[in-house]
């Protein structure tokens, strides 16, 4: 039944092509005469380029050209633009040449490119490019980089400071003076490597006759790439077609417009043939953005009864060597504004220092700023509870914002849309049998077992967002969405959307929406996305915005289709338009449902226009744009139960309960899938993942052999529950669910491990909680502390 498609766990419509190998990712495309590009990258993290000799490489078999940064500059190619400059922060935006000129600032920085007839030959020649470097001193730690006497990355950013941003609400000084207890912690929210399974790739075809460019690229937002590419290549936006074909995961790492996009365009334009670049995984680890990397000094103030009265923090955010597309917005807007979490914290102050270092640029990685906020808040809440000898549940209940449906302001200036934090917590506690679990914990502790329970009762911000707010916070674009709904004479439907999903399943959920709203079978709806020549302008898929914002546009277009269908039906049934009703896929005269027209009847007549209202445009197609009135704020409770092996430091996950609330659910199967994946990524940060640099700026975790991407082994079956608190921000009452798992799970696991180790007096271990670190902490613990 079409009307029931909303809320149904129907199988995904995108899967058959993915299951059979018919899907086409960027590297799968081969064009006639296509050449391959390889990038020569700096082995030094900071060095002056004294000279580059391309002669030997240029003479090698199959080589079509070898180019440097200066060649690109001379051809009129500009720097990679930074698309987010946070206001009121004195942000410095130093030049980011796609290929380094004079100076390299991180290991992996491009210094030259080689184009050859074959992938292998391009790599051979890349190795023959001779670069003469004069190494310079290196700094990789963000806090250290701001100290006196440290190496300087950019002349315009003294002390390597890109910006100093502040957020303040209430009176923090007074709150701390009035407090009974204050807890302090230094948190290292470590650098992570996104690891989308598909490495990045870009294929450019420049047609000089028409001056037209087509770029196939692994992107989460082809329209943004087109816009930015027009700025640095000088090719007019209307002559550029950007296609994000099948995209193999992104997690934020495929938001940015990267130097390699410009390189393939330059090479194609210069050599007159299509040029493709596909990164290797080792290259990906150095040249695709990283995430997180905060040093946080945090304090929380509370009353004896557990009431939290203030939060104060100072953060050094490592931005890497250059500003990636959205990097400055992540540790500010998406982090600092969320410091109230799910709690009523009236007084908040944070200083964030954005710092340049000799490392790979950082940008949005799943959660992007919110994991760094949530971990901070959830950890400090636990520390206050510990100090006051309160149960972590009790302190959370005491400080939760009470249930609300119509907006709730917090100290940082945001207005949360809707929430029922206590509801999600109660449900999770029930699923867990919390009292029973604590009783068992006492018994097991008596036997010497190290078992712990950890909580994360998060609220996050997503569904980015109102465009006026985007403008006010310095984002260089809008954040509305768009959709076109087109009915064919046969009653089949094509929908074209500005979002660009890459695994999240909107080809299914959006078809479900069309189906349930218009009475069309789900199978009759095809969703098109990811091609700027085919789809309306839209801002793409990130910040868990595709469904909350994109569905708003879709609903707008559906509304227009329904309006037109009423007019056509009124004409066909010889009735007044205002007398036409719609229900369950049928348009009929009020009170006379026996004589009716389906949307397919209307589609046929509108497309042939034989018997048609005079003056009405033929065709049944509508487009709509939607700009939400606010962000959406999903929330929930995640609880982890862990056991620590005192002998080996190994952590075993015994149970994991997650109750998430993303408003109304369109497809519960897809929502659960998003949560599963998110949880594992967050657990990865808590237990295994972490990018490490040595003192020379060499990435020690430079391949999948050295950086731990979670494997199938070692996870319990996640126990999922849901509550449903709709939002009024969009027509369907839906919130994003793409990032909640990652935001919630890291502190839940961490708090559980600390609970397990509490009897030993271990209160802190820096993430990731590897067996070695845990073992060392246990060994050096002072029981009873």
């Amino acid at each position, binding site marked *: 039944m079409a009307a029931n498609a909303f809320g149904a766990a129907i199988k995904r419509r995108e899967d058959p092509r993915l299951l059979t190998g018919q899907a086409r990712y960027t590297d799968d495309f081969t064009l006639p005469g296509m050449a391959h590009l390889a990038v020569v990258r700096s082995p030094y993290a900071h060095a002056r380029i004294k000279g580059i000799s391309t002669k030997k490489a240029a003479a090698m078999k199959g080589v079509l050209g070898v180019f440097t940064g200066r060649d690109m500059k001379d051809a009129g190619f500009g720097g990679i633009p930074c698309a987010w400059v946070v206001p009121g922060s004195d942000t410095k935006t130093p030049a980011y040449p796609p290929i380094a000129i004079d100076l390299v600032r991180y290991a992996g920085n491009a210094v030259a490119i080689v184009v050859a007839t074959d*992938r292998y030959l391009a790599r051979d020649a890349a190795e023959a490019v001779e670069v003469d470097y004069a190494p310079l001193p290196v700094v990789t730690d963000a806090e250290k980089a701001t100290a006196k006497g440290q190496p300087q990355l950019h002349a315009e950013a003294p002390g390597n400071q890109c910006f100093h941003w502040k957020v303040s609400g209430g009176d923090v000084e007074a709150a701390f003076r009035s407090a009974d207890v204050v807890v302090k912690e230094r948190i290292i929210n470590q650098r992570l490597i996104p690891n989308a399974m598909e490495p990045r790739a870009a294929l450019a075809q420049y047609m000089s006759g028409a001056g037209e460019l087509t770029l196939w690229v692994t992107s989460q937002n082809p329209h943004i790439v087109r816009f930015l590419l027009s700025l640095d290549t000088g090719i007019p936006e209307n002559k550029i077609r950007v296609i994000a074909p099948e995209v193999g995961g992104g997690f934020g790492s495929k938001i940015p417009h990267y130097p390699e996009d410009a390189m393939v365009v330059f090479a194609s334009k210069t050599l007159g043939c299509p040029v493709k670049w596909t990164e290797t995984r080792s290259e990906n680890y150095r040249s695709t953005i990283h995430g997180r990397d905060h040093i946080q000094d945090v304090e929380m103030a509370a009353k004896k009864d557990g009431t939290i009265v203030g939060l104060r923090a100072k953060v050094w955010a490592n931005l890497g060597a250059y500003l990636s597309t959205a990097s400055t917005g992540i540790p500010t807007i998406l982090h600092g504004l969320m410091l109230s979490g799910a709690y009523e914290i009236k007084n908040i102050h944070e200083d964030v220092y954005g710092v340049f270092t000799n490392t790979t640029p950082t940008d949005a990685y799943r959660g992007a700023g919110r994991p760094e906020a949530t971990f901070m808040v959830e950890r400090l809440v636990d520390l206050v509870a510990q100090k006051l000898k309160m149960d972590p549940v009790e302190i959370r209940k005491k400080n939760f914002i009470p249930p609300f449906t119509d907006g709730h302001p917090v100290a940082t200036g945001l207005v949360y849309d809707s929430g029922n934090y206590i509801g999600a917590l109660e449900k999770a506690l029930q699923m867990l049998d919390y009292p029973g679990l604590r009783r068992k914990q006492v018994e097991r502790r008596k036997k010497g077992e190290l078992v712990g329970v950890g909580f994360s009762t998060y609220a996050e911000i997503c569904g980015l967002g109102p465009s006026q707010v985007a403008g006010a916070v310095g984002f260089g674009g809008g954040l509305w969405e768009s959709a076109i709904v087109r009915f064919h004479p046969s009653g089949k439907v094509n929908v074209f959307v500005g979002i660009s999903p890459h695994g999240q399943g909107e080809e299914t959920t959006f078809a479900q929406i069309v189906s349930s709203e218009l009475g069309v079978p789900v199978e009759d709806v095809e969703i098109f996305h990811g091609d700027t020549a085919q789809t309306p302008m839209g801002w793409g898929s990130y910040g868990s915005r595709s469904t909350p914002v994109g569905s708003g546009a879709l609903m707008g277009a559906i509304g227009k289709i329904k309006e037109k269908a009423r007019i056509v039906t009124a004409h066909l049934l010889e009735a007044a338009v205002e007398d036409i009703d719609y229900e369950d896929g049928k348009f009929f005269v009020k009170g006379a449902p026996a004589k009716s027209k389906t949307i397919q009847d209307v589609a046929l007549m509108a497309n042939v226009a034989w018997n048609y209202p005079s003056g009405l445009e033929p065709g049944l197609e509508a487009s709509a744009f939607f700009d939400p009135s606010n962000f959406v704020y999903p929330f929930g409770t995640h609880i982890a139960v862990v056991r620590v092996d005192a002998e080996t430091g190994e952590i075993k996950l015994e149970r994991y309960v997650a109750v998430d609330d993303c408003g109304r659910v369109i497809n519960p199967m897809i929502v659960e*899938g998003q949560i599963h994946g998110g949880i594992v990524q967050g657990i990865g940060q808590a237990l295994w993942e972490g990018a490490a640099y040595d003192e020379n700026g060499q990435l020690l975790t430079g391949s*999948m052999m050295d950086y731990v991407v979670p494997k199938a082994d070692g996870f319990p079956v996640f126990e999922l529950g849901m509550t449903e608190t709709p939002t009024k921000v969009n027509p369907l009452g839906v919130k994003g669910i793409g990032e909640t798992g990652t935001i919630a799970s890291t502190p839940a696991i961490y708090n559980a491990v600390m609970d397990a180790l509490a009897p030993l007096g271990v209160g802190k271990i820096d993430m990731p909680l590897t067996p070695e670190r845990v073992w060392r902490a246990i060994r050096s613990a002072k029981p009873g502390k």
Partner: protein
Amino acid sequence: MQYPVSITVNGVPRKHPVEARLLLVHYLRETLGLTGTNVGCDTSQCGSCTVLLDGKAVKSCTVLTVQADGAKITTIEGLAKNGKLHPLQDAFWAKHGLQCGFCTPGMILTACDLLAKNPKPTDAEIRHGLDGNLCRCTGYQNIVAAVREGAARMAKA
């Protein structure tokens, strides 16, 4: 220097002269145009490029084409027969065992090998058996469910 190879891919005999260093995955993707096999890493960790070589799961990014001379290769394109999905493909669909789909071909072919050796694996055995294949989207829970479901369907077939 080119070396002649004869390889049967998805039941079709193929003959090509290839360079000694040509990786099997590039032979499949670029010489034969079978782009369903994906390349996700360069250190044999991710398993995206897994294919069956004489029935055994191998990472085709770590096999030279010349090493596969005389072998029978099955790629993801060769699993569905007469337009009908293989029970494992169908199970991955039914259990939402994929999101972006990039790891899926390798995951399914590894599962084929796993079920050939152990037709009724426990969940723990499935998780252990998939350790050489990384997925960043699904959190594995639905992949494990899909392999379990695939095993049940294959037992009935």
